C-alpha cells in the first residue's frame, strides 16, 4: 500500500526532470547570493540562464553538480538527492556531467591531448591508445582545433582554451552539459559554431544542456527555455518569445542591453567625467 503510494508520487515527480533544485539558498559569509531558487531541468532540453554579471549564475551552475554545497535547500539528480552526498559518492554521479568552466580551467601541466584524455583515463582502463587518439582528434575537430594536440594551454588564446575545455567536457559522453559562458571571448563565427554544437548534441544524442550566457543571440538560438536571474531570484522563466515580450523592466533592459535610468543619471551628473579624469599635476618623465 505504502510502496504503491510512494511509486505514485515518484512517478508524478519524475515527468522527465533530470535535475531539480528546491528552495536553494546560498550565502557566502553573510552575503546572500542565491535566494530560494526553485528550478526543474527537463531531460533533453536546453535551458539558458541569463542575468547581469555577478548575479550568481556561476554559483547556481556549480550547485547543480555540487561543486558548491547549498546553505539550505536541496538538489536532485534523476530524482535522487545529491547535495548531501559525500564527495566519494558524488564522483560517480559527476561522470554523467560535463562542465565547461567560465575560464576553461584546463590543466596547465598537461598538453591539449592529455587534457582531453584525462577524464577518460580516470574512469576507463585504456588499452587501445590509437583509438583514443582518434577520439581526441574527433573531439578537437568538433571545436575546430584538430592539430593542436601537443600544445600546452599557456600557448593557446583565450577562445582556443575555451574550445579545448569544451572538447574535454564532452569527452566522457555526458548526459548533461553545464556551459558557463561558452561563447564569451569568441568571434561571432566561432560563437555560432558553439551554438551549433550545443544544438547538435541535443538533437543527435538527446543531451541536456544548461547554458549560462550574456549573449542574447546565442540564447535565442539554442534555448528551449530561458531563465533570468536577478538579485539571487528567478525573475522570468519561459521560452524565447515569452522572454522577448516579458513586461518586467529588468528583463527588457537586460535583453535589449539598455542601461538603467539611474546609471545614466550618474553618468550625466555634471563634473563626474572630469573628476574621473583627474590626475596629479606633476607628470614624471
Amino acid at each position, binding site marked *: 500500500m505504502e510502496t504503491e503510494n510512494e511509486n505514485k508520487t515518484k512517478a508524478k515527480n519524475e515527468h522527465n526532470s533530470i535535475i531539480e533544485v528546491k528552495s536553494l539558498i546560498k550565502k557566502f559569509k553573510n552575503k546572500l547570493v542565491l535566494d530560494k531558487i526553485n528550478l526543474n531541468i527537463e531531460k533533453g532540453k536546453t535551458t539558458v540562464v541569463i542575468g547581469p554579471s555577478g548575479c550568481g549564475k556561476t554559483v547556481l551552475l556549480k550547485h547543480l553538480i555540487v561543486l558548491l554545497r547549498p546553505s539550505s535547500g536541496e538538489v536532485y539528480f534523476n530524482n535522487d538527492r545529491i547535495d548531501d552526498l559525500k564527495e566519494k559518492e558524488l564522483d560517480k554521479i559527476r*561522470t554523467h556531467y560535463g562542465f565547461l568552466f567560465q575560464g576553461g580551467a584546463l*590543466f596547465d601541466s598537461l598538453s591539449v591531448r592529455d587534457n582531453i584524455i584525462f577524464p577518460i583515463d580516470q574512469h576507463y582502463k585504456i588499452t587501445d591508445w590509437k583509438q583514443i587518439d582518434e577520439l581526441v582528434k574527433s573531439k578537437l575537430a568538433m571545436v575546430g582545433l584538430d592539430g593542436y594536440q601537443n600544445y600546452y594551454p599557456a600557448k593557446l588564446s583565450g577562445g582556443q582554451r575555451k574550445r579545448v575545455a569544451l572538447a574535454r567536457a564532452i569527452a566522457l559522453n555526458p548526459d548533461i552539459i553545464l556551459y558557463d559562458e561558452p561563447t564569451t571571448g569568441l568571434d561571432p563565427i566561432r560563437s555560432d559554431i558553439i551554438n551549433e554544437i550545443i544544438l547538435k548534441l541535443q538533437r543527435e544524442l538527446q543531451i541536456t544542456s544548461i547554458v549560462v550566457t550574456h549573449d542574447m543571440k546565442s540564447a535565442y538560438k539554442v534555448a528551449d527555455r530561458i531563465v533570468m536571474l536577478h538579485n539571487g531570484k528567478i525573475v522570468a522563466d519561459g521560452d524565447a518569445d515569452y522572454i522577448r515580450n516579458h513586461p518586467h523592466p529588468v528583463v527588457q533592459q537586460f535583453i535589449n542591453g539598455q542601461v538603467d535610468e539611474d546609471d545614466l543619471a550618474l553618468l550625466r551628473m555634471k563634473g563626474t567625467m572630469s573628476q574621473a579624469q583627474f590626475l596629479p599635476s606633476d607628470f614624471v618623465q
Partner: protein
Amino acid sequence: MFAVIGIKTFDFINDIGRFAKFFWQSTIVSLNCFLRAKAYPLIRTQMNIIGVRSVPVVMITGAFVGMTLAIQAYDQLAGMGLEERLGVLINISVVKELGPVLAAIMLAGRIGGALTAELGTMNVTEQIDAVRSMGTDPIRYLVAPRILALLLLTPILIIYTDLMGILGGYFISVIQFGINSKAYWSYSASFVELWDVAIGVVKGFFFGVAIAAISCYKGFTCKEGAQGVGQACTEAFVSSFVSILALNFALAIIFKAIYFTFWPIKSIV
C-alpha cells in the same frame, strides 16, 4: 580587542581541525594509491621533479654544515688535546640532527613553496574544481602522489646531505687541520652507531610527509588572486619550518625512550 583575539583563536583552531581532516584523508588515499599501479606514473613524475633537482641543494647544505662544524669545534677540542675526536662530534651532529633538519628545511623552501604555488594557482584558476567535476578526487590525483614522492625521497636526500656533511668535515679536519686520518675515522666509527644514522634517515619520512601535507593543504585553501597564492606560500613555509623543528623535538624524545629500552646503559666518553 578581545573579540578580535577570540575570532583569531577560533579561526586558528578551526584551521587546525580542517588540516587534521585533510591530513587524515590524504593519508588514507595515499596508502590506497601506494597499492595501485595506476598511481605509479604520477608518483614517478613527482619524484623526478622533486628529487633530481634537489640533490645539488641538499648536498651543498650538507657540505657547508660539515665544514662549519669542523672550523667551530676544532679549537675547543684541540685545547683539550682531543682533536682526534673531532670526527665523532661532527659526524654525530650531522647524521643525527643537523643533516636531517637542514635538508628538510631546504626542501620545505624549495619543494614546499613550489607545491603550494602550483596547487594554489590550480585552485584559483578552478583547475581543482575541474578535477572534481570530472569525478576524480583531487586528493588522489594531486596530493597523494606528492606526499608519497616526498615520503620516499626525503630520507634519500638526507643520506646525500649526511654524506656531504661527513666529507666536508673530513676535508677541513684532516686536510686543513692535519688531523691523523686513521684516528679521525676510527674514533668516528666507534662512536657513531648505525642507530644514529638510522634515526636521521627515519626522521626524513616524517619531515617529508609534513612538508608535503602542509604545502598541499595551503595550496588547496589558498585565497583568490596572485596575492593569495603568495601568502599561501609564505604560510606553507613557516608552518613547515615550525613543524619540522617540533617534530624533530618530539622524535628526539621518542627515539631516546626507544634507545634506553633496548640499550639501558651507555657511557658517553
